[in-house]
Structure formats: structure tokens, C-alpha cells
């Protein structure tokens, strides 16, 4: 968002979010066996010609997973890149099914929380014409 563009990223805050949830989230991330079985349960994957970027696990691994990998040391550019993933490519409808029981929506929801805490979230102003949110 333009009005937040200059504000520096509060990495300590991001780290606090990651730290507080790591007991659950790090386990979910490590227990995902990267099998892709969850793909068809997501209507956004099915509705985009089965584009792997819409696969539930892909979205969680590349948003929250990357935040943990980088230990919260990210810049605004990074958050802007995962913004579309956590807000547009997933609507948190909770339809995804994982045979092992990995709770994908809870990971993407934490990704959203972290983005929002840094002022990175979609707005529907006419001025924001960079990308389609539908």
C-alpha cells in the first residue's frame, strides 16, 4: 500500500508472532510430506487450470513456511510478494483436505496476521489497480 510504503518493517514483531505459534506451526510445516494430495480439494486450484501455485500446501509453504525459514528477517518486498498468496490465492474457506491432518488454513491465517501487522493487506481503493483481487 502506498501509504505504508515508507514505514520500516518491525522484524521483532514478526519474530514474536512466529515464536508464539512455533509449537504448532513448525510441526505442521515439517509433517507436511509434500505429497500434493490436498490439491484437488481447493476450488481455487481447480478453478485455475490446476495451476500448482494454487495448491493449499504450496501457498502455506511459500508464505508462512518461508517466514519461518527466514526467521522473520524479511523486507517489505517479501511481504508484498506473499500478500497475493495469502489473501487472493486462498480465501480461508477451510475446504482443503490433508490425509495426515495438516491444518493448512491455520498456517495461511497466521501469514495474513503477520502481513497485516506490517500494514500489508489488500484494499479495494480505485487507486490500487496493480492487480485484480478477484
Amino acid at each position: 500500500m502506498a501509504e505504508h510504503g515508507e514505514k520500516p518493517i518491525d522484524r521483532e514483531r514478526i519474530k514474536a508472532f512466529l515464536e508464539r505459534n512455533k509449537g504448532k506451526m513448525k510441526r505442521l510445516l515439517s509433517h507436511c510430506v509434500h505429497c500434493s494430495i490436498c490439491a484437488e480439494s481447493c476450488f481455487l486450484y481447480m478453478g485455475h487450470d490446476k495451476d500448482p501455485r494454487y495448491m493449499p500446501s504450496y501457498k502455506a509453504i511459500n508464505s508462512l513456511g518461508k517466514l519461518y525459514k527466514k526467521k522473520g528477517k524479511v523486507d517489505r518486498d517479501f511481504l508484498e510478494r506473499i500478500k497475493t498468496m495469502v489473501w487472493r490465492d486462498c480465501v480461508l474457506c477451510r475446504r482443503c483436505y490433508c490425509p495426515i491432518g495438516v491444518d493448512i488454513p491455520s498456517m495461511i491465517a497466521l501469514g495474513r496476521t503477520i502481513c497485516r501487522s506490517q500494514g500489508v493487506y489488500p484494499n479495494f481503493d480505485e487507486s490500487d489497480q496493480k492487480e485484480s483481487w478477484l
Partner: protein
Amino acid sequence: MFDFIRGPLLWVAFIVFFGGLVFQLLQFFTLTRKKERLFLSVHGKTKGRWSIESMRQWFESLLTTIIGTHPMMTILTLIFHCCLFVTPIFLLAHNILLDESWGISIWSFSESTTDILTVVLLVCGALFLLRRIFVRRVRAITTASDYLILFIIVAPFLSGYMAYHQWFHYKAILFAHILAGEVMLIVAPFTKLGHMLFFFLYRFLIGSEYSFGQGTRSW
């Protein structure tokens, strides 16, 4: 060196494996709390416990799992996991060692049976590998560690097979086999292989629409 991997390292492997699983289990119970039941699972029964109707309901609900959505993958992964689990436990060579060292004797398959199970597992492993390489959506989320873990799992089977058939240098292969088995046991509780425990915790104890059990706990 041989004595070391047959002795102390074997103990380390068993202790890390079982200790690691117990540690993970305890952590899970400190991280989750009992809650009121928020979800009514699709696998829950509404009719009496063992009535025909309840069995029908249960079988129908299984079709909402990967049994219904990915039948081929279900068969493949079921065969893979059965062989993975059953083969080393009921393996004659292992149980002779167990009997010699600790006097525990368990029933074993015949050697020709385990030999076949081993080959079946290796074939399933190869199919998983091909899937990882050639199926676009699997490739999209595959990292180097996925290949590594697959190798760590397959290595004891491959080397065990080679040892049994006395390919190459028997002593060296057996050495590699024992080491491979120990590595697998040591990494299992702390990597994605931890799903052998957490599958049950996630699907039976944590409440969700897809829970197989009561689902009374939450994070």
C-alpha cells in the same frame, strides 16, 4: 568400527527413536488443551455402534477421504506403508539377532516372503520418486530434503536386499545396511517422518471436520 555400529550406535538409534517419539508426544499434550467439542466429524456415527446402518455410514464417509478422491494413490501408499512397517519387524535375520542379543523371539516371515515385500517396497519407492520428478504439482512443492528423506527410507531396504543376496562385498554392504537403518531411526521423530505419530494425533485427537476420532483437543 563394526562393533561400534552393532553396539553403542544401535543403542543410540533405538533410544533416540523411541525417546524422540515419546518427547514429541509429551510436547503435543503440553501444547494442546482439552476443549468442548466444536466439531461433529463426518466420520462420526449417529446410529448404534455396530448396526448395519452405522457400518454403511462409516464406509460412505471413507469415500470423503483419499480413498474416494485418489484411489490409485491410496493403494500405492497403503502397500508402501504396510511393507515399510511389517517387513523389518517380522524379518528372520533381525529376529535372530534380537533373540541372540536379548532373548526376545518373535515370529518371522519366511525369507522368501520378506524378499518379495522388500522388492515391492522398492518398487513403490521408485514410483514415489518418479511422481516427484514428473508430476508438476508434486514437483512444485518438492525440496532437496524430500529426495533425501525418500533415500533415507529406501536405503535400509536396498542395502538389506543386497546383503541378503550377497551382492558385492557382503561385510561392507551389511555395514552400510546397519548404518542406514540407524540413520533412519534417528531422523524419524524430527523430520516429516514424524507423521507416523502425528497422523494419529492430528486426525484422532485434534478437533476438525475430518477428524476420525472424538477430536476433543485444540492447539
